[in-house]
């Protein structure tokens, strides 16, 4: 039975590819499974949340992070593919940063894990550049009209991590407690962190 190329279910196609590559010695399934497990279990937005919480509680670290994001993030033990050059963008009263990858899905894996589906979605990638205020509002974030919005397009060379504003009323919180309220969406710039 022959199937037209575009009608092969992707699960079957993936199985075929994996078989071929394993037979040819190009892929070792156990190595592959280690990578999968790492990104399913260990590498996620919690890493970025720890970076943010430390920046909120340690002025020296905050300065280092804004000066050289990659080095400061590596210092926390977070590095790897798609983390070679991470620039940190600080939210303020004057400017709101939001991150996109217009061409595919470049994203700072070591601090945020793998991107969520909306980040990969053609509509977000096209529209957030054209009408960021509207898109953010649709996602539940109303940026004050006097606040400028800057959209950052990720690339093979640079990936971005947003440093959100620390919510009011968290002055007595330690870094662990703060890390617990930092969300992935806030670190991409489509949400703010709230203490509630």
């Amino acid at each position, binding site marked *: 039975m022959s199937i037209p190329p575009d009608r092969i279910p992707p699960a079957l196609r993936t199985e*075929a590819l994996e078989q071929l590559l394993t037979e040819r010695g190009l892929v070792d399934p156990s190595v592959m499974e280690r990578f*999968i497990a790492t990104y399913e279990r260990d590498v996620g937005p919690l890493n970025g949340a*720890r970076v943010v919480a430390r920046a909120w509680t340690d002025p020296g670290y905050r300065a280092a992070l804004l000066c050289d994001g990659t080095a400061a993030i590596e210092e926390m033990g977070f590095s790897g593919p798609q983390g070679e050059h991470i620039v940190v963008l600080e939210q303020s009263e004057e400017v709101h940063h939001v991150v996109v990858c217009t061409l595919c899905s470049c994203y700072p894996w070591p601090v945020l894990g793998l991107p969520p589906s909306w980040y990969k979605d*053609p*509509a977000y990638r096209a529209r957030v550049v054209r009408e960021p205020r509207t898109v953010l509002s649709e996602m539940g974030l109303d940026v004050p009209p006097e606040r400028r919005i800057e959209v950052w397009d990720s690339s093979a060379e640079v990936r971005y991590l947003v440093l959100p504003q620390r919510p009011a009323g968290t002055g007595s919180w330690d870094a*662990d407690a703060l890390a617990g309220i930092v969300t992935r969406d806030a670190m991409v710039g489509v949400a703010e962190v709230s203490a509630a």
Partner: protein
Amino acid sequence: MTALLDTDGPGSPPRDNGELVFAEPWESRAFGMAVALADAGAFTWDAFRDRLIARIARWEAEHGVDNPSFRYYRCWLRALEDVLVSAGELAPGDVLNRSSTLAERPAGHDHDH
């Protein structure tokens, strides 16, 4: 790196905001293959990324950016095949031929009865 916080269970701090990293098992295999192959030097990540961009652009040109049927890992899988073909590790018909062979397995082939 030591985990200071519980990274498992319902009370864990932000991991995926309730979203699974992979929607279906094959997606995780396609992901793992690409990362493992790049790590082993079969191709550079940039070469793979270029193919991924091309596959996504092609899909968007054919279906429109507002089409909800977009499936990211389908583009990812085809990009992986593309980069392996251009690296000379696969011939263009290899995956198709093997898929056809696998499709001919009797139903329930993967169950022991």
